[in-house]
């Protein structure tokens, strides 16, 4: 079931939480609403569920207008950030709740309900906990029970609010993989809210980046990471190195730093954004770029060695960060305080006088 969101405006008193949101969430896909806190992502999710009412705009499920439909009649599955399990009910009673409150005509018989609950608990691999109370469960177990409870009504739309927010790193990773495989198996339309860019990029088919109540960009994870539309998206999706300077006759410069740009760059004030993996480190400057640095810190933990660099003879707001392989690190043995040069392979140029960023390649 696809979800079409059209012209949504939402106010809390005088504060506008959402500005004219237009979005289509395709059938059967896993979509992430990604943004910093206060960006309106949870509000949008709650509007889709019907827990909040927008001042303007329509919500349609596969073309059917549900804007004025009450939450209880929308039949969506919703997983709350803090699980919201019924604390006085056992796990089995929690999962059975949706079935037990059905009108008598539609309600399955007791044995049928018991069987459905057993199947659902098997699906989340927690059938041995059926008799426990929520207070006796770990965070990851609560999360899976909350999911089983939401799935009990066989919803075609599953909405998850910060589903892994309150879990520790290891459990989070397991649950993420498990949710992905569950989604691939059952093919419902899912939307989940997160502020963790890694989670959004890893898990979803489509990412909606939001900030200040507006949609910044909607794209596949690959496109989003490779071609961000705006400085905000660029900075929000992982580490970024920035050179601010002036472009004169195809050369961008600031202080001692300069880069020869490829053909076709107008004279302007501009910022060049580079991902850590789009930059190489060399001992001497090339004829294409002169970006002198001093090594500020070396971090050996992880698949790559991360090197923090302080500009030498020019300025930037935050330190640059470049990743090199452990093999390269062992061969060169760079030390703290060494002087080195950065050479960009790919970069993204944001000019003051043109709205669209430009992707540059030097190879």
């Amino acid at each position, binding site marked *: 079931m696809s979800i079409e969101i059209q012209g949504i405006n939402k106010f809390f008193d005088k504060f506008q939480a959402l500005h004219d949101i237009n979005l289509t969430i395709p059938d059967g896909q896993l979509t992430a609403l990604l943004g910093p806190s206060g960006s309106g992502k949870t509000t949008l999710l709650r509007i889709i*569920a019907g*827990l909040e009412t927008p001042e303007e705009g329509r919500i349609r499920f596969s073309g059917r207008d549900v804007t004025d439909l009450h*939450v*209880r*009649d929308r*039949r*969506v*599955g*919703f997983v*709350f950030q*803090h699980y*919201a*399990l*019924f*604390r*006085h009910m056992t796990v089995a009673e929690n999962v059975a*709740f*949706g079935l*037990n*409150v*059905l009108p008598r005509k539609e309600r399955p018989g007791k044995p049928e309900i018991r069987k459905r609950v057993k199947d659902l608990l098997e699906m989340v691999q927690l059938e041995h906990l059926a008799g426990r109370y929520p207070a006796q469960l770990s965070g990851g177990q609560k999360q899976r029970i909350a999911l089983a*409870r*939401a799935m*009990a*009504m066989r919803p075609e739309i599953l909405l998850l609010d910060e589903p892994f927010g309150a879990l520790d790193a290891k459990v989070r990773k397991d649950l993420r993989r498990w949710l992905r495989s569950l989604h691939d198996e059952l093919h419902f339309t899912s939307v989940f809210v997160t502020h963790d860019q890694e989670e959004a990029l890893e898990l979803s088919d489509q990412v909606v980046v939001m900030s200040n109540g507006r949609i910044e960009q909607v794209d596949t994870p690959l496109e989003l990471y490779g071609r961000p539309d705006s400085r905000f998206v660029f900075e929000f999706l992982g580490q970024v190195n920035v050179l601010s300077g002036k472009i004169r006759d195809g050369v961008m410069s600031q202080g001692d730093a300069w880069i020869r740009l490829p053909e076709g760059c107008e004279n302007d004030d501009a910022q060049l954004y580079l991902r850590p993996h789009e930059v190489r480190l060399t001992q001497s400057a090339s004829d294409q770029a002169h970006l002198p640095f001093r090594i500020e810190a070396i971090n050996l933990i992880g698949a790559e060695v991360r090197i923090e660099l302080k500009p030498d003879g020019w300025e930037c707001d935050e330190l640059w960060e470049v990743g090199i392989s452990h093999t390269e690190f062992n061969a060169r043995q760079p030390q703290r305080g060494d002087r080195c040069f950065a050479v960009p392979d790919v970069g993204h140029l944001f000019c003051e006088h043109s709205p669209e960023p430009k992707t540059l390649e030097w190879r």
Partner: protein
Amino acid sequence: MAARKHRRVGDSPLVRRTLIGLAVALTVLLLFMPLVLIFVQAFAEGWAGYVSNILNEYTLHAIGLTLVVALLTVPLNMVFGVFLAWLVTRFRFPGRKLLTTLIDIPFAVSPVVAGLLFLLLYGSNGWVGQWLGEYDIQLMFSWPGIVMVTVFVTCPFVARELIPLMQQQGREEEEAGVVLGASGWQLFRRVTLPNIRWALLYGVILTNARAVGEFGAVSVVSGNIRGETNTLPLQVELLYQDYNTVGAFAASSLLAGIALITLVVKAIVEWRQSRN
């Protein structure tokens, strides 16, 4: 063995014994002795005297009236308290904070003043009272007036117990319930009520204790008509003024008995509450 050199401040045996002794002495003198004395006085004429005092026509009537007042007040304030707590904790509306403050008026105002206010408003010369008088309805100096002031005096107990708890529990569980398709009533019965039941019971116990024991406000609006508008606390006062000390204490022993039962039930409920 190395002796412990550092004691906590005020942890010397002398200080400890003095404080414990003082607390015990005050408890015995101010709380326990008076309670025991009530029963000693009540049985001053023996068991038969006690029974005949209780079976006094007017005392029996006072017991009945007190029970009627409690039976009407407690359910009314239970429903009102749940409704108010639900309203204040589950909805946002202008004046919400003001309403939360207004709930406490009966606690802040002296019961006698409350009684006088009701007399002013609903008495035969009062604004509402005059209008009701035209329809031959008399509220003051009769049982409806007593119920009204008792409701007023005891109305914050349930709401006061529920509001902090419901605020702390939040509305997520109820939202989860609605998303799963529960109707308003199903939500209340299956989700909200089980979560607040012990706090609600606690509030009801306090309401009942106060409804049975209220003196000030009731004394203003009752008119003290023997065998008609006298509740048990008022009957105690009347008997005492008649120099019937033993009768007064026999009636008091009933109130004290209710208080003791209340304490036991309250302790059980508190124990259950802490277990959940």
